[in-house]
């Protein structure tokens, strides 16, 4: 769609969605002004609060930083060494790793189960879908407090009424039960979200395959195992890595439910960084932890994004 009579060499051969490069100086200046005008605001705020912040984090991880006074004497790799030697960091890392793996498995199984249930021929399926999704909508802090009440008082009441030991445990009082309490809250919150992803995958299965299997005499279990599950594998991959990513970054629920207690035994890595930075005021060490955290989370996220991309291609 060339309007002016340009020489052949200069005609744009790329798809029409791209503007041809400006030729005159005046034009170029105008284009630069447009770049700044349109991209500028977003880019500026992004650079200030993300790029500069990230660079600052990396830099200060090599210093003994005091945010209040602004002092940041260089200490080289000392912070990183301190992090690796710190037993509390090891505990946090193990807690987070255990938590991430267990919640990922549980949340995906439950999410998939709910999705299979909700895609059966039943009445009010859409209402139930909304109901299962509700926990995902409430903020983590509020959910954490809700379950503080549930695990202490409500469970206590049920335990007294029914005599079932399960409800009479000191849920928030020991490391083991504290871990499982956090798992329960997180899985409850996340399963609904995964359910929706799985529902979309199940519904997108080609009808002809379902019909072919039906003609071959497949019952419910065979259909699920041999037709449905294999065909939603891309969604499974996406969901698994998504859950891994979210669970590793656990903070709000952790903070509100146990705040790391009792005695730091239920402190996930993100909470550990927060405490290091704002309770113990070691911003240098905290920055080192933050950088390590970034590397781990970044790796998981990259895998997740490439899995999502692959899935989109298949769809």
């Amino acid at each position, binding site marked *: 769609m060339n309007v002016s009579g340009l020489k052949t060499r200069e005609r744009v051969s790329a798809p029409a969605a*791209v503007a041809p490069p400006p030729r005159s100086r005046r034009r170029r200046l105008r284009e630069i002004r447009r770049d700044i005008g349109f991209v500028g605001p977003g880019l500026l705020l992004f650079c200030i609060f993300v790029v500069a912040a990230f660079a600052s984090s990396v830099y200060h991880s090599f210093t003994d930083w005091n945010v209040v006074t602004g002092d940041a004497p260089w200490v080289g790799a000392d912070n990183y060494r301190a992090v690796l030697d710190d037993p509390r960091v090891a505990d946090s890392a193990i807690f987070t790793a255990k938590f991430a793996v267990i919640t990922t498995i549980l949340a995906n199984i439950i999410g998939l189960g709910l999705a299979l249930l909700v895609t059966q021929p039943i009445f009010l399926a859409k209402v139930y879908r909304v109901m299962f999704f509700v926990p995902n909508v409430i903020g983590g802090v509020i959910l954490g407090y809700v379950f503080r009440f549930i695990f202490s008082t409500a469970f206590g009441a049920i335990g007294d009424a029914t005599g079932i030991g399960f409800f009479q445990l000191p849920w928030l009082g020991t490391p083991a039960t504290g871990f499982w309490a956090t798992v329960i809250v997180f899985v409850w919150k996340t399963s609904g979200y995964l359910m929706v992803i799985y529902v979309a995958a199940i519904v997108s299965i080609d009808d002809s395959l379902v019909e072919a299997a039906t003609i071959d005499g497949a019952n419910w279990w065979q259909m699920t195992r041999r037709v449905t599950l294999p065909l939603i594998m891309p969604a499974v991959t996406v969901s698994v890595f998504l859950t891994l990513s979210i669970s590793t970054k656990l903070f709000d629920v952790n903070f509100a439910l146990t705040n790391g207690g009792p005695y730091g035994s239920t402190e996930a890595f993100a909470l550990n960084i927060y405490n290091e930075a704002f309770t113990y005021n070691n911003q240098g060490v905290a920055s080192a932890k933050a950088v390590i955290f970034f590397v781990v989370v970044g790796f998981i996220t990259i895998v997740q994004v490439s899995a999502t991309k692959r899935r989109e291609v298949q769809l």
Partner: protein
Amino acid sequence: MNITRRARRQAADDDGAPITALKGTTGRKPPRSRIILLSVITGLLALFWLSPFWFVTSNSFKEFGDILKDAAGVPDPFTLDNYSTAWESAGFVSAFFNSFFVTALAVVLMIGIGAMAAWRLARVPHRMNKLVFYIFVSAMIIPFQTIMIPIVQITSDLHLLDSRIGLVLIYLGLGMPLTVFFLHGFVSTAVPVSLEEAARIDGASSWQTFRYIVLPLLRPMLATLAILHTFWIWNDFLLPLLVLFDPEKRTIPLAVFQFFGRHANAWDLALATLVMGILPILVFFLAFQKHIIKGVAAGSVKG
């Protein structure tokens, strides 16, 4: 095309969930009794799933002593005292206003400047713009904890601490990657260049083209992003905790947190506060649930 198949396709286009009269995952229409049985079981499961909310809500209408006596039962006597006390004590009116102000402003501005950037980056992908886009996208993997300390310092240096506007600006910066990422792809598919060129021929400036041609066409994705960002910002806790100090400027999560700090075991008041904290976002969700669920299902909503 067979009737059930057509209906199913319609249902899938609608929001991705099948309707009852269809074959489900067996391919065969099961007997009515089976349908009813499954519906009831799922219903009971759904009620059980939401039972924590029952505990919190029912006990919020009881006096403290009654909560301890019988945490599982229906409130008797029923009382609204907890709500009136908590309302004042937690400063809920200002908390709600603050959450609303920060969320609304941040979301509106975010999709505005995000769309501007995404459109420009998509239409004029010279080397610099391509680099900018890649930087935006790669920043999506940075977890908040990694940059929270420097953000506090930068905000302080800019004299934006304890400022709701400052908070909005930070959210804008943090939200750019995701916003630009999704809109960039959407621009290529949803906005025909021919329309833009027609506008240009008619004498429209870049800005006018963007405002009157491009923006309306981006509406579906803008809506999805607006909803996604609303959930993120409304429920966000750590950033406001680090950046807001004045009790008058607290957002709802912050107000709930501080309330619990002071009245840790006063369950009667605490539960009323929780219910009040849950209601706004719950109402918002129920109002837009169809769109929200569709957005999640389409995989366009990143966790």
